[in-house]
């Protein structure tokens, strides 16, 4: 059993939890995730490690309540216990191993909605290693822009774009990329985009045109997260890759996003399908 040591609501449907899991805290690196099973009869759900404290032996997750398991999790409080947490899973971000070559590059992070959670530890890690990066945070409206304060402390510059203009620039993250590159004349060697599939798809299309290499973090349906079941497969450059062991980060210009978006609806009842797509599209289409 793993104890929840801290819980904090970040917006209406997004909350942060620090969970006691010393083994995971000890080995976690940016880019990795955990799989959580709340109780005996629960399902295994993947969640990115948003931060970790090796001394305290805790890992942080930032969760958006979207369905059964995440909503149940939202009702849990400090002192409650989670039955199972496995991790850290997936490969750490490439820049960790290739840091020497990355040092002089200009990186732009693009975080959409709850995607700020996986972006944050990466920006922080780079900051701690002496490299400050730019970050775009996008959300439908101001209350869905999360971790802005935390991010500002570790980033070079944080740019915010909201669909309704309630915070930062009015527009989508892709509009902000356009603005930065074309109006402000900024040059980036690498874009790391994490958010809803539809956002990553349009960012990748745009950066391809702009000629900037792009890494995306895939979030397919998973079961074991250890490379045993194949549920998490994504097509990358015509090859089948398993996001839980080969990823979750891949070359954004090679990922088949349309297939990934379709596959993510496998367990949605068919009538709910349209609604789901509509919801995602509103917030992040470029």
């Amino acid at each position, binding site marked *: 059993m793993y104890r929840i040591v801290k819980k904090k609501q970040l917006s209406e449907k997004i909350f942060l939890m620090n969970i006691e899991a010393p083994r995971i805290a000890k080995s976690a690196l940016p880019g990795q995730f955990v799989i959580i099973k709340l109780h005996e*009869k629960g399902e*295994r759900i993947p969640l990115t490690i948003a931060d970790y404290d090796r001394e305290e032996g805790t890992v942080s997750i930032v969760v958006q309540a979207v369905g059964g398991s995440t909503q149940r999790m939202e009702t849990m409080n400090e002192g409650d216990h989670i039955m199972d947490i496995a991790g850290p899973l997936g490969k750490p971000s490439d820049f960790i191993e290739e840091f020497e070559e990355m040092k002089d590059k200009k990186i732009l992070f693009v975080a959409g909605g709850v995607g700020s959670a996986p972006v944050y530890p990466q920006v922080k890690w780079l900051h701690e290693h002496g490299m400050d990066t730019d970050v775009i945070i996008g959300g439908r409206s101001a209350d869905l822009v999360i971790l802005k304060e935390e991010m500002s402390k570790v980033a070079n510059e944080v740019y915010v774009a909201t669909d309704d203009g309630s915070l930062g620039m009015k527009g989508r993250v892709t509009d902000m990329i356009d603005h930065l590159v074309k109006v402000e004349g900024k040059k980036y060697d690498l874009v790391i985009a994490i958010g809803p599939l539809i956002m990553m798809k349009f960012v990748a299309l745009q950066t391809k045109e702009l000629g900037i290499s792009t890494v995306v973090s895939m979030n397919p349906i998973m079961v074991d997260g250890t490379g*045993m*079941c194949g549920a998490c497969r994504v097509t990358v450059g015509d090859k089948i890759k398993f996001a839980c062991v080969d990823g979750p980060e891949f070359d954004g210009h090679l990922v088949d996003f349309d297939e990934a978006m379709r596959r993510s*609806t496998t367990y949605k009842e068919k009538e709910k399908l349209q609604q789901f797509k509509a919801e995602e599209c509103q917030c992040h289409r470029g």
Partner: protein
Amino acid sequence: MILERIKVREQDPKVRSTNFEEVCLGYNEAEAVEEAKRCLGCKSKPCVSKCPVAIDIPEFIKYIKEENFEMASEELFKHTSLGAVCGRVCPQEVQCESKCVLSHKGEAVAIGKLERFVADWHRKNKPASTTVRENSGKKVAVIGSGPAGLSCAGDLAKKGFDVTVFEALHELGGVLTYGIPEFRLPKEIVKHEINNLKSIGVKFEKNVVFGRTINFQSLEEEGFESLFIASGAGLPKFLGIEGEGLNGVFSANEFLTRANLMRAFDDEYETPMQIGNKVAVVGGGNVAMDAARTALRLGAEVYLIYRRTEKELPARVEEVHHAKEEGVKFVFLTNPAEITGEDGWVKGVKCTKMQLGEPDDSGRCRVSTIEGSEHIIEVDSVIMALGTRANPIITELKNDLELNEWNNIKVFNDNGKTSAKNTYAGGDAVTGAATVILAMGAGRKSAQEIANNLA
């Protein structure tokens, strides 16, 4: 010489195809004794030569004849810790029973069923041992709680080591828990075995992934002096054909994991399951049979598509027989060429007919496509049961663990010695997908060598 076996009682096919209870009910005492009497107690013990762990078959059967079930189990447990499992899942017809002298004229002695009887008798009649030996304080880590890991851990604990098993999943047992279904191997048996190990002092840590949560270095820092890696076979294979990315295409591992480990078919459990009314299972091994029979129990009409003939099916004969009785429709000499879809979901499997040709070097007949034989089998789900390839978490470990030509862990002797310091490996992680008994045997051999080296 009695040429015919004592028939083993089974659930009626009509009834069992709608439930998950065990299909084969096993022998009762009287039946077991009768069957045991058929054994001739051959001096040369031909049957033993084909048992991967050399169980002294005539010896334990002799005790059954004498109705001394306690001695029978003692004899059995000298050689195996998983008799109740192997009696149920060993491919006996190509192992021990294939060499039984009775098979020349009639039916081989039902060695597997007798082994199962003895182990079941012991489980029901003898309380688990709770004699935790004083351990020497020497710590050994075992990675993976499948049959290889469990047997290695058990032997090491009995030899007085302080053993911890690290398991990636939230349940113990490996394939015995997430792969092989309840109707073939009741989970209670696996649990019993694990409880026995706990009672003799083996420690278990779940949700720990070697190569991610822990590694060689961290284990050394924790004071482990030796390591046995039994992480099983890895990633499921796909065919690489058009349409495999459609919704409704699953690997058998995913489907079976949802059913067995996550109990997705039970509404009280939260994991969802999406299996249509008509299901195609592609493959011909035990995994394919298990997937087909599980889909059948969930109410689907099931086609099992295999590119060779019934004779070449690699699955245990008993499973094929049971699958047929339950109503799985076998489609032989047929190969999927494409999965067709509609609105992103599976609509059918486009197949070609195959023909058998000359045997190749390995003695297996080559198969070739018959031109112009394309046809579509309409289904709404496709389950791929095509085998596995090595798991990258293990193969990408950054250290001196050498791999063999199939990317599995390379071993340098019969006891699973690897190129890494004080590290041994066994089971599917070394051989690729194989059998429970081979995995168990490998675990026991490594345990012996680890014990010798640490002594």
